């Protein structure tokens, strides 16, 4: 059996073997897919956007991830079969399950959950052990501290402990900032690695008031980069935090700080690392999102590899991008702990000769959990296990969030908001985190928190005119489909409940959204005022936390009441390979 299982795994990605084992065996030590051929002299391991998912999860990749303009039909904007074809992945394989939405429920039964930090720890230790002392580095691209009830109540402290045990040596951030400056700093005091961000500066007012900063000369709040000696060479890691923190989240969390892509400051910093510090390789640890990274790679010179995150794109191969100084490789390493990226570099004096990249799915059933990490996770979760294991509902269909326009999780949240808050329309943010629950799997309090745990969860009800609603939809839609990636913020379209509309992603802002209708079929009137419920407002709100509102709704025994599907009709993207179905 052992040999056959190994064959099966080898075939998972690229080979053509036809096997159909019902399920991966439990308790397997390690598997051959994790036996990587040795290459080069420095190994960098990269995780990103784990969203604090300590235990293995189900997470369905999107069936709608549309690219427009130059990004149309290019990674990461490929889904389903188009994705498999582009990357040479066999359908019906474990990798097809890990990387795409195809036959998700069927495959979930066969291949089980992915990720989990004790399983990740086993894999990280093994891959570091394979190359030996001082030849590897472990980096985290941010969104490590947020996404679960535990991370919420501990304000990320749980993840700092886990990061220290896992051995993360440098990270950058995004949702980390939503705990506010003091908590962020307290957590970083405990973090044994480096927090890097070249693109976070004091506001002029904060600088004038002598607010703390890493470098008062430049106004940089955090250390921009660190130089590590690995494999006998000097490798610079530059951090790039999410550029739009004060825009995508309430500004009150970061009143003293100003962000942005800061291309020019980045170029200067790369030049200084190359020219003054004489580093042999430059890596950008980025939370820009993949489209932004691809554009940045075409304009900034001197970066060997951009290790990307934010947009949660699991892209199996790096994308080479030409610029005036040479070629920069751009990656994106998925989300929720599903993947571990392995970057093997062959470094010579002053340059990277060659690179090999693997984005390894963390198949939890193939990896023995690390006992030390399992013990730590158990200890951290212990105070809440009883309360949070309470079952609140059992959905009769697959619940997932990810998709450009909607998903069943957010349809449920919108239905709950409309019902509990007595509103005609509900709006729910297009987050890309939040795990997947299988049909018939009981939902617990912990599951609900994994879809909603943010530091600004208050619900609201307000009156908005039809014109205002359209403006909001247009504004957010432009964050996704502006043809210039620098004007995109990442994330997906706001979810609308009680409202259907037509979207033309390829149109310009102001012209993408049309045919807005209430559930009754009545057209939305521009001047009429509608009662709109929502949560996660960037303005301060006073309503009950969204998890209480949705929890109350579900406990009453109700679930979906209305139409299935997003309520969004797409126009002008018929042949776009970023669409494989609803969502």
């Amino acid at each position, binding site marked *: 059996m052992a040999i056959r299982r190994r064959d099966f795994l080898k075939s998972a990605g690229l080979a053509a073997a036809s096997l159909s084992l019902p399920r991966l065996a439990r308790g397997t030590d390690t598997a051959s897919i994790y036996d990587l051929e040795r290459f080069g002299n420095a190994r960098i391991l990269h995780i990103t956007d784990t969203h604090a998912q300590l235990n293995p999860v189900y997470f369905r990749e999107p069936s709608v991830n549309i690219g427009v303009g130059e990004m149309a039909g290019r990674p990461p904007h490929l889904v389903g079969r188009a994705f498999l074809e582009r990357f040479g992945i066999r359908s019906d394989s474990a990798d097809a399950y890990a990387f795409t939405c195809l036959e998700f429920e069927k495959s979930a039964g066969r291949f089980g959950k992915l990720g989990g930090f004790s399983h990740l720890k086993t894999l990280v230790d093994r891959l570091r052990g394979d190359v030996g002392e001082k030849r590897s580095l472990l980096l985290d691209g941010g969104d490590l501290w947020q996404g679960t009830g535990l991370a919420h109540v501990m304000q990320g402290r749980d993840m700092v402990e886990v990061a220290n045990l896992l051995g993360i040596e440098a990270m950058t951030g*995004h949702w980390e900032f939503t705990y506010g400056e003091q908590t962020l700093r307290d957590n970083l005091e405990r973090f044994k690695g480096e927090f890097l961000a070249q693109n976070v500066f004091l506001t002029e007012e904060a600088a004038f008031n002598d607010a703390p900063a890493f470098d008062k000369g430049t106004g940089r709040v955090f250390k921009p980069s660190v130089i590590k000696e690995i494999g006998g060479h000097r490798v610079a890691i530059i951090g790039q935090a999410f550029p739009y923190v004060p*825009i995508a989240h309430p500004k009150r969390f970061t009143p003293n700080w100003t*962000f942005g*892509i800061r291309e020019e400051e980045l170029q200067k910093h790369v030049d200084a690392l190359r020219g003054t510090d004489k580093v042999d390789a430059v890596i950008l640890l980025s939370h820009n999102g993949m489209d932004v990274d691809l554009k940045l790679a075409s304009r900034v010179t001197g970066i060997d590899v951009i290790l990307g995150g*934010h947009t949660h794109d699991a892209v199996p191969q790096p994308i080479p991008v030409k610029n005036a100084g040479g070629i920069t490789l751009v990656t994106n390493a998925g989300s929720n702990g599903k993947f571990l990226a392995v970057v093997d570099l062959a470094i010579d004096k002053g340059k990277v000769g060659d690179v090999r990249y693997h984005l390894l799915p963390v198949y939890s059933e193939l990896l023995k959990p690390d006992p030390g990490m399992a013990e730590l996770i158990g200890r951290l979760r212990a105070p809440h296990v009883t309360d949070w294991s309470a079952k609140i509902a059992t959905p009769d269909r697959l619940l997932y969030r990810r998709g450009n326009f909607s998903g069943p999780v957010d349809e449920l949240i919108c239905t709950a908001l409309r019902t509990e808050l007595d509103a005609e329309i509900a709006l729910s943010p*297009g987050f890309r985190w939040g795990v997947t629950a299988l049909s018939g799997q009981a939902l617990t309090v912990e599951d609900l928190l994994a879809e909603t745990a943010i530091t600004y969860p208050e619900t609201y009800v307000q009156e908005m005119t039809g014109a205002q609603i359209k403006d909001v939809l247009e*504004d957010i839609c432009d*964050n996704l489909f502006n043809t210039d990636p620098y004007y995109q913020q*990442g994330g997906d379209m706001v979810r609308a409940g009680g409202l259907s509309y037509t979207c033309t992603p390829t149109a310009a802002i102001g012209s993408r959204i049309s045919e807005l209708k209430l559930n009754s079929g009545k057209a939305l009137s521009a001047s009429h005022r509608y009662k709109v419920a929502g949560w*996660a407002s960037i303005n301060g709100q006073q309503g009950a936390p969204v998890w209480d509102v949705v929890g109350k709704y579900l406990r009453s025994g109700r679930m979906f009441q209305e139409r299935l599907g997003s309520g969004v009709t797409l126009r002008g993207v018929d042949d776009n390979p970023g669409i494989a179905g609803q969502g």
Partner: protein
Amino acid sequence: MTTTTGPHPTRRLILQGAASVALIGLGNLPFAAAHAAANDKYPEEAFKQKSEADAIKALYGRNAEPSDKVKLDAPEIAENGGVVPVSVTTTLDKVTSISFLVAENPFALAASYKIADGTIPGVANRLKMAKSTKLVAIVEADGKLYSATKDVKVTVGGCGG
């Protein structure tokens, strides 16, 4: 970086309409420079124009050509549309004025600076932007007009990631 401007009323920093400006380090220019510019009149008509093309015409009487020697720095997406930091620097010689225009504001011309001979041609400003807009910087150098543009998005804010 902020240019220095002289004390003479006709040489004061020109501000009007939707432009909101925070200035740092205002200083005095040498007498000769102030004197040389003392004949300039306040460009009232230019500040009354709604479109950026009309404002440029009213201010300078001719069109500008795009130039990569004009470096306009502004955020792609504004963190606060009420105070958007913008700046212009240039490697052009003999710069005599620098102007900012916010195309979508009710009155496009936001600020216009006279640059005295011998002054480093760099201006930083904070502009109010009513909505997403094209931002135009004009540099007048050696009697010719040069421009740079950048789109600045003013968003209602949403959810990333």
